[in-house]
Structure formats: structure tokens, C-alpha cells
């Protein structure tokens, strides 16, 4: 059975593009458009890796969710790839280089996502069974 990957992003087209990419690489994909629903589904379905958008509805919803996940025993070690927007450094008060120090995610990926890079990053961070 393929590894299960969850995508939480409010842009359904981005989710769709990633889903096609991931399914073609043999992963199972589940998704959610919004943080709290995503969390519920995540706890129920226990994916092997999470792809999370930095900001969904509100600017810090992504950050918030990361902290919530890291604080829970079941998800403390879940690999998280965080997707950030181009120009986020100037556009928003967010700087991957600096925020990485305190934002406990495994990797930042820039939008638009490059399929090969995405699959590469996922393989790198999936727990080896």
C-alpha cells in the first residue's frame, strides 16, 4: 500500500495539481481546505506526511496548525513540508530563512511547486519503514 500524504491548502487548484503529481508517484492523497477540518481529518486518517500552506484563510493559520501539531503526541514527529508563496519575504512578514529557526517544519517549498522537486522532498522526509 502507498504512503498516505495529506495536503492542507485553501487553493483547490494547487491541491489538485499536487494530487495529480503525488498520485502519479504512487502516493495516496487526502486533502483539506482549512486548518481545523484538516486537523480532524489528519487525526482520524493518520497520514505519513503533511503538506501545508503557510497561510490559508488568515495569515497565520498555517503557523498555528504547525504549533498545534507539534504539541500533540501523535503528531509531534509527523514530517511537515511547508509551502510558501513567491515573494513572501517582502510580501508578508515571513522569512523562511529566519522563521525556520522557530517554526518546526521539516522543509520549505516555494510555490509554484515543481513536481520533481516536490516528490524528491517528500521521499527525503518520509519515515523509512
Amino acid at each position, binding site marked *: 500500500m502507498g504512503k498516505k500524504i495529506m495536503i492542507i491548502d485553501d487553493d483547490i487548484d494547487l491541491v489538485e495539481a499536487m494530487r495529480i503529481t503525488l498520485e502519479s508517484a504512487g502516493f495516496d492523497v487526502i486533502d483539506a481546505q482549512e486548518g481545523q477540518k484538516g486537523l480532524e481529518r489528519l487525526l482520524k486518517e493518520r497520514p505519513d506526511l503533511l503538506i501545508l500552506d503557510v497561510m490559508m484563510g488568515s495569515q497565520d493559520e498555517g503557523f498555528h496548525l504547525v504549533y498545534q501539531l507539534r504539541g500533540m503526541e501523535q503528531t509531534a514527529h509527523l514530517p511537515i513540508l511547508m509551502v510558501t508563496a513567491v*515573494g513572501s519575504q517582502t510580501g508578508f512578514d515571513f522569512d523562511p530563512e529566519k522563521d525556520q529557526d522557530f517554526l518546526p517544519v521539516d522543509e520549505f517549498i516555494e510555490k509554484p511547486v515543481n513536481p520533481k522537486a516536490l516528490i524528491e522532498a517528500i521521499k527525503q522526509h518520509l519515515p523509512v519503514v
Partner: protein
Amino acid sequence: MHTSDNSTDDSFYTPRSLRRKNNWLITLRWMATGATLFLILGAYYLLPGQLPWKSLFITVALLGLINGGYAWYGWKNPPAALRREWLLIRIQILLDLVLLTILLHFSGGIENPLYLFYIFHIIIACTIFEHRWEPIRVTASVLILFSGLILAEDFGWIHHHTLFGDPASSAFIFASLGAFYVMTVASTYLGITLMDRHRKVKALITKKNQELEETAKSKMTFFRYISHELKSPIVAVQSYINVVLDLPQNPLTDQSRNILTQARNRTTQMLDIIKDLLELSYDRRSEPTHSKKQCAPNACLREILKNELPKAEAKKIDVETSIPDTEPNFAIRRFLLEKIITNLISNAIRYTGPGGHIHIRAEQDDARWRLKIQDDGIGISEEDQERIFEEFYRGKNARDSEAIGTGLGLSIVKKFVDQLQGCIELDSAPGRGTTIIVTLPRTTDEN
């Protein structure tokens, strides 16, 4: 419209600003002491009448001594409390009035036209105090002191020293006093009115300035919002194109692949423009805290070269670098410096043909860091050089040689160099190449 009442807004003053006023009074008094001494000496040699010279000189000496006392007190006690500074100002003005009255007494009283000097104190009170009735209080003191002196002399309670020999008649005295009253009250009224108006205008300007700053801030917020809204659909489009182009299970004809590649290039171009616009709208007043970070410029340059050199290698461009081993003894804002260096180097690579040469040289001294980037690329014509830093302007050579470019790169460089209070020099000719020199001074940063 905002109308100010006449109450003193103490938050407007700081002990330090009041101390400046105190020091100003002390400076004025040194000048007044010198001028008075000069006048007394002049009178001593020129006037026919006999004045109590000794008393006069002692009074002036007292004025100087007291002023030295103020200066000493200020030197010993750094400004701390508003109350104390206000008190100091009031004491200074009151003592000045008393000393002036004594001087007038010894130098002819009503006969001496120097009693007009009282007006100075009224004007000073109008400029220093915001309370309407502070200058009124000073005026009242002036009227009481001077009338008291003149009447006491006229009634013979104290001695009257004549300036010109003959004692003045009572009629002259009362006429002079009357004129003096009118002038004093009128000056007070005018002084208060003018300062009121001045303060209203000042308050208005401060308010307008605040409004402008808020507008700039909301413009920035708007820009961020718009850029996010513009970016999201393009990111989605490009993500789909990437999926179609890059996933091996999608067989594409060569033509489809070319068309999609071109489509992807255009979405990349659009994203670049948005990114550049964001950088161009960057304003230090509303900058995110992290972009205040400083960096050592030579290390920053090396770091950027690491990313840019592969692009030059791919075009078989020979890049020669000369960067000092040591850093200058000051740092530069990283966010701004990175954009300046990156944009200039990537421009040099973009507009230099295969087999070309780029020479990158950094230099520094105690007060400046300088970056010189010299290429033998396509160059910029003289007429384009005038407009090259304008937003969205691309030189003809640039358009001919590279279809894609936002036309914002050099505008960003110019803006950021300006923000760092630096300067940028351009030397170029078509076909001969371009030399750009950016000089960034050591700046005293506000933090």
C-alpha cells in the same frame, strides 16, 4: 477643523526640549550682558549727566554672575523633570525683569529709552509658553515693576538719577507711561495671537504628516493584498502547467510541449513582475522587522556570487572577482544590499553574450563600501541611460536581446541605493559594455 484650546499639552514638551529653551535664554542673556556693558561704557564717556556708575557696573556684573549661575546649575543638573525646567524659565524671566528695572533706576528711569527692552521679555514669554496667561503674567509684572519704579521716583520715595540733566515733568512722565502701557499690552496681544496661529499651523502640519504616513502604510498593505490576489491564480496555472510538462506519463507532441513551455515562461515573467513590484513598494517605514538585519557586505557578495556564477558558466561568460578579505568596519541592511547586488549581477550576466567577460570588484574604506560591476555586454545607448532607472523602462538593446524582463530591476536598485543614502554611477555604450558603480556610505542607523 481642529481647534486647539489654550492649555499646555505637557506631552509636547520634554525636560530636554525645555532645557534647550533655558539654554537659549542663557545665551541671549550673555549677549544682553555684553551689550549693556557696552552701552554703559558708551554713556560713561559720552553723557553729560552723572549717573551712579558704580551701581550700574555692579548691576551688570550681577547679571553676568547670575547668568553664570544658571549655566553652572544647568551643567550640574541634567534635564530631568518638566516642573523644574519650567520653574527655571520663570525664575530667569522674573529676575531679568527685576534687574532691568534696577538698571533703569540707575540710568535715568523714564528718561532712558531702554525701557523698551521690557518688550523683549514679553516676546520671549509669548514664544516659550503655550499658556495664554503666562505672557500676560509677564506683562503684568513688567507694568507693575516699571510703574512702581517711575511713580516711586516721581513721588520722591526713591532717588531719581537724571540722564540729561533736567528732571522730566510729571506730564511727560504720565504721557510716556501711558504710551508704554498701550505698547506693552498691544505687543502681548499680538505676540499671543501670532503664536497661537503658529501653533495651529504646526499642529495641522503634524496631523497632515501623520495622515500621509498612514496613507503610505495602507498603500503598502493594499499592495501586499493585491499581490497575493494576483499571485494565487498564476501560481495555480503554473502548477498545472508543471504537472502536464514534467510528469512522465503525459505524452506531449513537440508542439504542445513548446507551447506549454512558452506559457510557463510567461507565468514566470508575471510572477517576477509581482515580486519586483512588491520590492519596489517596499518602504522602510513599514518594513518587516526581519529586514532590518544587517550584514557584512563582502560576505553577502560572495554568497550571492555562489548562486549567480552557475548562470554565467552556463553562458560561458568569464567572471573575474576581486573582493577584499576583510570586511569594512560597518554593516549594511541585508535585505536592501542583497537585492542591489543580485539585480546588478544578474543583469550583467543576462546582457552579456556567450564568451563575454564580467569583472566584479568590491572596495572599502572607513566610510564607504563600493561595488563595481563591469561587463563587455550589449551596453546601453545614451538616450536609454537617462531613463534606465524608470519603472518598467527597458532599453532598446535589452528588449532586442532578451524578450523577458520586468523592467523593474534597476528601479529597485536605484530605490534601494537611495534608501541607503548611496549613489550609483553608470558608464556604458552600445556594443562596448556597461560599468556600474554603487557606492554605499556608512550610515548612522536609527536603531
